[in-house]
């Protein structure tokens, strides 16, 4: 995103252009996933598929505060993070199809998107399991004198895992440059926040580790971006880890397997009224910097991009079975 942003800010109103870019990213994520849902129903994507629909503002806003060479570690619900970080739709879609042109060569699938070029370190499907990795990347950056921030995403459910606690303490103790982004979408699968946590103010709890923490409206991409920038600036300035609790909601079920029996339909509808894409579009409209035509152009552009991605993925070759045992060990020395 940063790269794209940079290439476009030469136009007349850089701020407006930037906000349109944010909108485009969110639309790309939304449409990408809607396409995935269809392809899943058609049996062309398999395994587990967790959609981010409704939460796009979180990944989009945070990534906007990161540099291209800064690492992101995230979960199985990561298509949005990948696209926002700059992984393009084509290798991402190919990964969904399990093709060798996929960003993880088809070995990872939806839950394990990896991309070295954009410093995208997964795609971790053990809840909370990615957090220590992010702490380690931050440690390496610090030890090697690189001025980088590593961002890590995880859910409200992950906050209950021991690894979260250990990692928060370690990051705070060593004042490591890591931005911990807790996507609080109020559910861990079918378990509501109040059934996961005795004390549900997660930002407050994170602050008890000596980590600066804020709760942020995760449906407002500009608010997310602003909070992330502020946190990243402070981290770059040496203030140690920061924690953002991003209050958001998933509009769809936990995964394609989930019948979503545990949520009140009215609750879902209420949250849909706060759709982050509609909200930003309305704001841009109000500011006179979007309009019907521009929005249609974004949609058309995204649709074309996805069409190409799907076509390419469909045609791409499968990895030959004779290569099964590759990548268990490195093919080159250290």
């Amino acid at each position, binding site marked *: 995103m940063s790269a794209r942003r940079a290439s476009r800010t030469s136009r007349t109103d850089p701020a407006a252009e930037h906000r349109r870019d944010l909108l485009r990213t969110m639309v790309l994520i939304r449409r990408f996933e809607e396409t995935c849902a269809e392809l899943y129903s058609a049996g062309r994507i398999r395994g587990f598929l967790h959609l981010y629909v409704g939460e796009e503002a979180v990944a989009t806003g945070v990534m906007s505060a990161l540099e291209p060479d800064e690492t992101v570690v995230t979960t199985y619900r990561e298509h949005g993070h990948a696209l926002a970080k700059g992984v393009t739709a084509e290798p991402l879609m190919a990964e969904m199809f*399990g093709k060798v042109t996929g960003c993880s060569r088809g070995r990872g*699938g939806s*839950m*394990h998107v990896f991309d070295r070029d954009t410093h995208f370190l997964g795609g971790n499907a*053990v809840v909370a399991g990615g957090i220590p990795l992010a702490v380690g990347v931050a440690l390496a950056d610090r030890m090697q004198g690189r001025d980088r921030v590593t961002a890590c995403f995880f859910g409200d459910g992950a906050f209950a*895992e021991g690894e979260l606690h250990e990692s928060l303490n370690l990051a705070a103790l060593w004042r490591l440059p890591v931005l911990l982004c807790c996507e609080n979408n109020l559910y861990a699968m079918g*378990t509501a926040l109040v059934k*996961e946590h005795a004390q549900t103010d997660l930002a407050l709890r994170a602050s008890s580790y000596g980590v600066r923490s804020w709760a942020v409206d995760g449906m407002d991409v500009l608010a997310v971006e602003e909070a992330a920038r502020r946190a990243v600036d402070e981290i770059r300035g040496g203030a140690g880890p920061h924690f953002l609790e991003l209050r958001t909601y998933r509009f769809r079920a936990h995964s394609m397997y989930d019948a979503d029996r545990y949520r009140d339909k009215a609750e879902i509808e209420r949250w849909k009224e706060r759709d982050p894409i509609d909200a930003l579009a309305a704001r841009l409209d109000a500011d006179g910097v979007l309009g019907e035509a521009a929005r249609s152009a974004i949609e058309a552009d995204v649709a074309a991009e996805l069409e190409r991605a799907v076509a390419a993925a469909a045609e791409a070759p499968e990895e030959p*079975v004779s290569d099964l*045992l590759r990548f268990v060990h490195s093919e080159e020395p250290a």
Partner: protein
Amino acid sequence: MTTTTPTTTPTTGTPTGTVETTYREALREGLRDALRGDDRVFLMGEDVGSYGGCFGVSLGLLEEFGPERVRDTPLSESAFVGAGIGAAVAGMRPVVEVMTVNFSLLALDQIMNNAATLLHMSGGQFAVPLVIRMTTGGGRQLAAQHSHSLEGWYAHIPGLKVVAPATLEDARGMLAAALADPDPVLLFEHGSLYNTKGTLPAEPAPVDIAHAAVRRSGTDVTVLAYGGMLPRALAAADDLASAGISAEVVDLRVLRPLDEAAVLASVRRTHRAVVVDEGWRSGSLAAEVAARIAEQAFYDLDAPVARVCTAEVPLPYAHQLEDAALPSAETIAAAARSCFGGGHG
């Protein structure tokens, strides 16, 4: 001591006293029977309640038994497995569900260092009558963090019993037997079996968790399998039959302690053995079974024991790679045939 009242609510009654059911529903009936029959029994784990269990096994039980006895937990594998151990020590009969064996690594310290060890370490004072259920296995394109078969590790731990239902009977009946055991029992459900359909007697028959079961008799070669590999072993036996090889298929069922007598008895009859195991080959449970056969039936063997295991690779998402990594009816049959090919002996 645990008295399980026979259920009278079969899924679908049939005139002949049998019910059409699935592996999933059979497991659910087992849970329902246990919850009905003993107040000390409760089910606890992530999403066992409102969600109905990540694979739908416990659907409806929350409504029937309430949130005290069908207890949703936070994502805290170590704490809720440990709490199950503590509750078992203190007089309850907890059934703890860990979604999959992959995540059970987060609770392995509790299972190994407490559940399996407390009785011994305390000189016999504190027993742990706990059942832990989890899903194991691959074959559903869930990739490298959701597909592994690690039950062999648990079968290494003294103090545990480890069982793996492969049939509807066992899916329904093993839980009662596990709960009747005074010590911790781990029950491994195979993810690819949940939708298996079949019929069961309306009245649940008691199942024993001490013995292997011969699922198909044969005379020429013994194929040993369990859990998700049993259907593949049976398919291989069909295939072998059409090539004139009579394969006996033994369902290990109990992974610890192994029913060595049954294994050896079959191999001593057939003189050839193929061990099938969805775990990775090196250090697999299949290695143990093969080693025992080679140790104790060495002079009865007409060919080396063959093993068919999963390729030594974290399971990939891509279907063709995953398929190639897992044992199949074809690779099992080929291994069995290879027992007849040798020029030595």
